[in-house]
C-alpha cells in the first residue's frame, strides 16, 4: 500500500490499474507548498488499485495506491 507522506492536491496520476511499475518510476504528482512532488515507486511492483482521482485534496497518511511487489 502506498500512503501519502504529504498533504496537498493530487494533480497527476501517471499509472493505471494492473500496470507493472519499475523502481523509481513516478506514479503520482502532488502539489504541495506550491511544489510538484512526485510519488515514486520504491521497488518493482504491480498497481492493483487506485484510491484517488486528479484534483483530490490529499492529507498525510491517505491511502493512494495498492501495489503488490511479489507477483
Amino acid at each position: 500500500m502506498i500512503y501519502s507522506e504529504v498533504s496537498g492536491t493530487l494533480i497527476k496520476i501517471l499509472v493505471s490499474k494492473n500496470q507493472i511499475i519499475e523502481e523509481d518510476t513516478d506514479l503520482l504528482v502532488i502539489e504541495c507548498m506550491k511544489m510538484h512532488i512526485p510519488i515514486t515507486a520504491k521497488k518493482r511492483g504491480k498497481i492493483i488499485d487506485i484510491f484517488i482521482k486528479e484534483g483530490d485534496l490529499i492529507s498525510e497518511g491517505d491511502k493512494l495506491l495498492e501495489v503488490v511487489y511479489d507477483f
Partner: protein
Amino acid sequence: MSWKKELEEKLIREKLSENLGGKERVKKQHDAGRYTIRERINILTDKSSFHEIGKISGSATYDENNDLVNFSGSNFIFGNAKIDGRNIVVGGDDFTLRGGSADASIREKHLKCEQMALSLQLPLIRIVEGSGGGGSVKTIETTGRANVPEVEGWNLVVESMGTIPRVALGLGSVAGLGAAHLACSHYSVMVKEKSAVFVAGPPVVEQIGQKLTKNELGGYEIQLKSGAVDAAVDTEEEAFNSAKKFLSYLPNSVYQLTEQLSTEDNPNRTSEWLIDAIPRDIKSVYKIRPIIEELVDKNTFFEIGKEYGKSIVTGFCRINGWSIALMASDPYSYGGCWTSDTCKKVQKFVDLAETFHLPVIYLVDCPGFQVGLDAEKKGTIKEGVRAMSAIWQTTTPWLSIIMRNCFGVAGAAHKRGSSYISRCAWPSARWGSLPLEGGIEAAYRSDIENSNDPKAELEKITTRLNKLRSPLRSAETFLIEEIIDPRNTRKIMCEFADLAAPLRKIGMTSRTMRP
C-alpha cells in the same frame, strides 16, 4: 595453602551464569531468530575483548551445609570491551531470564553500567530486550510489596546524554523502562519484523480497547515515523554495524575531539553535473541525496532518522577526513518546508553536533515553515522557535550553503543571529520574507484589484519583482557574502572543515542535550 578452591567455586558460578535462562529458553530465543545477550556481545565487540563486570552476581541457592546447589546469573550483563580497537562500555538484557524484567535483575548492575561509562568517559552501547530491568506485575509477589515508582539512576542517563555517546539497540520486544532506554540515546536501532517498541505491549493496550499485534502497535514503521527510533535494519549483525558506524564519527566523550582520517578523495574535486542539479522550474523538485554523496568524502555519508521529519536530511559525514554534521533540505517532503517533526529533528541533530563538537554544514532549500491547518494543529511555530533557539545556542563552526529557497523565519534559521558563520549561495538561490508566488497577491492586493486587467497586472508586478530578486543583486549589497559555482562546492566545504577543526573546543556544553 593456595586459594585455588575458591577460584574453582567462582568458575563454577561463572560457568552456570553462561547458561542464561536455561537450554529451553535459549532455544526459544534462537527459534525466534534472535541471538542471546552473550552471543550479541561477542558479535558486537572485538574478539576476546569483553571484560564482564559482576559475572557471578545473580541468584544462588544453598543446601543445609551452605554448599551451592544452583546459581542463576542476573539478567543484565555488562562490562567494558573494544569495538574496532576502541574502548566502549556495553550492557544488555538477557531476555531468556524473566524477559529482562526487574524480577531477575540486580538494579545496582544497571546503575554501575551507567556510572562506568560516564566515569570512564567511554561510549555506551545498551542492548535492550524486554522491559530493560523495569518492573512487571509479578514483582509485587516476588518482593512482597508494591513499590513507589522511581527510576533510580536516571540522573546518570541524563548526564551522560551531555557527556558520552549513547547508542541503544532494541533487538526484540521492548517495553516500559526498556523503551525509555532505547529512546534515551543519541542513536537507536531496531531490527525489522523482530523488534517492537512500546510504552506497554498488546495485552495492556487491549484493556483500553485496542486489539493490535506487536508490529501494529510498535513495529519499526511506526517508531521510525514517530521519531522514537532512528533506524531499522534487517538483521542483528546490521544493527551492530550501524552502532559501530555511528560511533566512528564521534569522540569517546565531550572531553575529546575527533581526529582527521586520511582520505583518498581530492578536496579540490569538482562536480560538473552540479551546475544542472537545481531545476530552473521552481515547482520542480530534485533529489538531495545524490548531491550530498557527491560533495562529501566518497561513501562517508551516514544518515540518521531517514523516515522522520523528512524535509531535512541529517547525518554524519567526512569532509577532507574531518567528521562533520550535515543537514540538507529535501524538497521531496513539503518542498523542503519545516514541519513540526522537521523542527524536532533539527533540534536533536543540532544539539548532537554541539555536544560532540562537530562542525555543521547546512545545505539550504527552505521555503519556510509548513503552512495550513495541519501545520497549525501540530504546533509548528512552537517547535520552529525551539529549533531556531537550538541553532542560536550553538557555538560550533557552521557553514550554510543556500542552494535554492531561503524564505521567512524558518529560512532565517540557516544562521544564528549576528554571530559569525561561513555562508555562500548557489546562483539558483532565491530568498525573501515570503516567496513571491503567493506573496504578491497579498502585498499588492489593491493594485491588482483596482486594475482593469488584474491578471495582467499580477504578471507585470511578478516580472518586475523577479528581476529584483536575483541573488547577484543581493550580493552587490553584501546581503549574501558570496555566490559560488556549484561545481566547486566540495572545495568550499573542505576548506571550511580545515578552518573549523582548530576552533573546536572540548568540554560539556552549558545546556546539555535532552534525548
